[in-house]
């Protein structure tokens, strides 16, 4: 699946357009469709409330859901405004994920 199609799928699952952060296109291009589907499934589970969110210390109106691929190479952070909408999906490598975590205060 192309990165643009993946983003459309995310929009369809969450019911609204969100921002994307990190090297999302590059990350998606380098993984199999099966792994892309696993990320989409995780997005769906975040929406259903099945994934445990964490509070963001630096942005107290936000909460974040964390995704880690089984090989520990891809990380994702889906942020949501408390009691409101999902706002951003970050997808990237471990190094940038750590930076993003520090930024959000996770």
């Amino acid at each position: 699946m192309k990165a643009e199609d993946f983003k459309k799928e995310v929009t369809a699952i969450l019911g609204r357009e969100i921002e994307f952060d990190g090297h999302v296109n590059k990350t998606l291009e380098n993984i199999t469709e099966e792994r892309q589907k696993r990320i989409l499934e995780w997005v769906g589970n975040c929406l259903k409330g099945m994934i445990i969110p964490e509070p963001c210390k630096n942005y107290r109106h936000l909460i974040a859901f964390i995704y880690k691929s089984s090989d520990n190479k891809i990380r994702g952070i889906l942020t949501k405004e408390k009691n409101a909408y999902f706002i951003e999906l970050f997808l990237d490598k471990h190094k940038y994920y750590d930076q993003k975590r520090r930024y959000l205060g996770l």
Partner: protein
Amino acid sequence: MRRLQYTLNLVHLRGIKKDIVPAIFTLHQFELIEKRFSNKKMTPSEKNEFSRAVSKKMVAINKILEKETDNLFCYGKEKILKDRLELASRYLKRFSRMFKNKHVLITGSFLFSEKYHDIDIFVVAKYEKEDYRYGKFHINYMGEEAYTSSFFASISGICVSNRQIIPCLIKKAITLDTFISLYQELFNDLHSNFAGVKKTLREFLVQSAFISKMPLPDSYMLWHQVRIILRSKSKAKIIKKIFVYAVILGIDDKKALSAMKDMVRLYKGMMEDYSQHKAYYLNLIKGFQEVIEVES
């Protein structure tokens, strides 16, 4: 500028400045070394002097050291299995040829455990690259800034290296904030049975030692502690105890108290919005509450 045939630990070099200036280098030459290894811009005449006077001396010094040590430095020898030391020395020569003029170290359970998953090879390079498998070897790259990290201090406790390792002051920021984040992440990894939990746990144990101002565990100690904790039925309980112990011993009580109260407040809010995960949050905040109880 031409690639150098050697690398230098600038922190160490500055520490021994009085021993080498003027015995080996003039003050001006020493300043050139500092400039070159901190990637500062050099004028053409400085570049010329560096390669003419400094670099030649450096290559000669390295040659003397190589001959004396055969480029093999062993750390934590008493914990390394004898047959593994011989094998590791052979592998080290092979990888030193493969990664010319780079600092290469072999570490991990291969050195001290009969059973091991793979052989960890670390290469210190200017830029970090993606790690990869090469047969039974796991090649990992580290940037030069890794020398001042708690991770490097830990892995170099037991290793076979092609360069001498001089202990450096740990500069990579480990704060109460990063430690709390790691505690949260580890808790989540344990809860979700994440395959990479070992890595998170190792980092947590190193950070907890650093925070509580205890000696950093080497890879043998870490391997042992990780095994014990992950085999235990009370993993989360042990993690909480380590967290509480580290914060109480290493963080100023007022600072710790305020941070823990803040975390409890944040998670109480989460419990209201995500009541389905209440049990998880309650278990997690027990660590924060225990610190509050002790420090109040």
